[in-house]
């Protein structure tokens, strides 16, 4: 009944972006090229302020690139891209709407009536909020609000799901549960996912590939520093030894060095 999402590829081709503040132009991203295959989960990792979120905003059309192009499903993004859905770091639910009406806000244009309510009920069920459909955002916890935000994004049936540090503001335990929920939903829906995070473990747990963004030495703007395949099929064991090694390598690239024990 709920047709699977038709996942689409996301292509960044030589993307650059600069912002002007106080009359000074500051390049944030330069020459970022990245190909995310349909149905693939890619984690964007990098130190804070390196332009991860900017890249994500370019992907959904909230910002336009200064150079290069962004393509979703082969079509160049101009303006808000209807096949993308974003989950922000904060839930950003509309406080005057109930949880279910917030989820309904994500429905694609033209979904109305009985079909719309079935969709909303389905996604509320998926994120485990069916019992809270009539609650207001301020009546539910931060973790539940973020689940509602995820349901709102899923209700859009996005070809590409864009997640901007979606679990960063949650407590450690809730974050782990949310990661498992996301992995589950992704494998069921099959959507393409671009996940911005600064959490190496989260990236390794969820992604097929981890893309490290960073500013090259002597440079000003961030670009892709490395791309690594994460071994093993999802869902992954958080304690896997091979992942632990990759974790140490990634943290090293981010400037966090693990002491060597003899």
């Amino acid at each position: 009944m709920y047709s699977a999402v038709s996942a689409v590829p996301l292509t960044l081709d030589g993307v650059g972006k600069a912002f002007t503040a106080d009359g000074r132009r500051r390049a944030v991203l330069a020459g970022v090229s990245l190909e995310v295959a349909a149905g693939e989960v890619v984690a964007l990792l990098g130190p804070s302020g390196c332009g991860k979120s900017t890249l994500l905003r370019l992907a959904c059309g909230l910002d336009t690139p200064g150079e290069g192009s962004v393509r979703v499903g082969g079509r160049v993004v101009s303006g808000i891209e209807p096949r993308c859905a974003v989950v922000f770091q904060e839930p950003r639910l509309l406080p005057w709407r109930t949880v279910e009406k917030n989820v309904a806000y994500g429905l694609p244009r033209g979904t109305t009536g009985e079909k719309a309510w079935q969709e909303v009920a389905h996604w509320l069920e998926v994120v485990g909020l069916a019992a809270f459909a009539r609650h207001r955002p301020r009546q539910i916890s931060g973790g539940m609000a973020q689940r509602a935000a995820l349901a709102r994004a899923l209700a859009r049936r996005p070809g590409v799901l864009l997640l901007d540090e979606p679990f960063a503001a949650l407590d450690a335990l809730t974050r782990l549960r949310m990661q498992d929920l996301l992995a589950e939903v992704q494998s069921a829906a099959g959507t393409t996912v671009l996940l911005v995070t600064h959490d190496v473990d989260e990236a390794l747990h969820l992604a097929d590939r981890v893309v490290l963004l960073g500013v090259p030495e002597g440079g000003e703007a961030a670009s892709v520093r490395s791309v690594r395949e994460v071994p093993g099929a999802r869902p992954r064991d958080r304690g896997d030894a091979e992942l632990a090694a990759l974790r140490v390598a990634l943290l090293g690239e981010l400037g966090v060095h693990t002491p060597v024990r003899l």
Partner: protein
Amino acid sequence: MTLTAPKAVANVQKGRRVALGAVVPLLVLAVWQWAASSGVYSAAQLPPPAEVVAALREMVGRGELWHHIAISTQRVLAGFAIGSLMGLALGGLVGLSRTASDVLTPTIQAIRAVPSLAWVPLLLLWLGIGETPKIVLVAIGAFFPVYTTVSAALAHIDPHLVEVGRAYGRKGLGLLGTVLFPAATPAILSGLRLGLAQGWLFLVAAELIASSMGLGFLLIDSQNTGRTDIMLLAIILLAVIGKLCDTVLGVVESRLLHNSGRGTSSG
């Protein structure tokens, strides 16, 4: 029983609030009575409360009081409707468009600085002495609080929520209807309340100058005829009707905000 208990508690609290709110008016009444009977003021300066009640009876009996109240209320409602609609429209424009704000704000702020009475001679000159100048003056009075609160509220909406609206494909009227307007609703409602209150203030300014009916006319007429009791009655009526109007809008406000899950505000 356990289900009715919270309601009973709420009723007690409400009764307490009404009782506390009545303390100061009763005190004023007592001081008034004492001042009137102590001989500090002559009866022409300060008639006792009983005489004001007698004046009320007399005017109700002659059937003219309703006339004054009705015409004043009509002027306020008509002026408020026009003024608040213009306030919503211009406040919306200035709140949403930076350019419109840059063009209009200095002028509107300057016009706002003009005292209500300053408009009266000009309005009489241009619009005659009929209903129009009075309604226009009330509209001017109602306009500014609505304009100010609406433009400020729209200009200060959480940009995060606006971004959600944009990211989920809303723009133009869709964005206005689903994010901007609902987010500004509390401010718009309190702006409307302030506008209505200011409408009453400007009404009296209009009626004091050139009118043959209404509560403002009653004030100036009672001064000319030395009827201090009627003067006091008119002032009390303005206070009571103004408070009543505000209470009605307050109830509407808390209903609307409660329905949208944003708690209640005091009426």
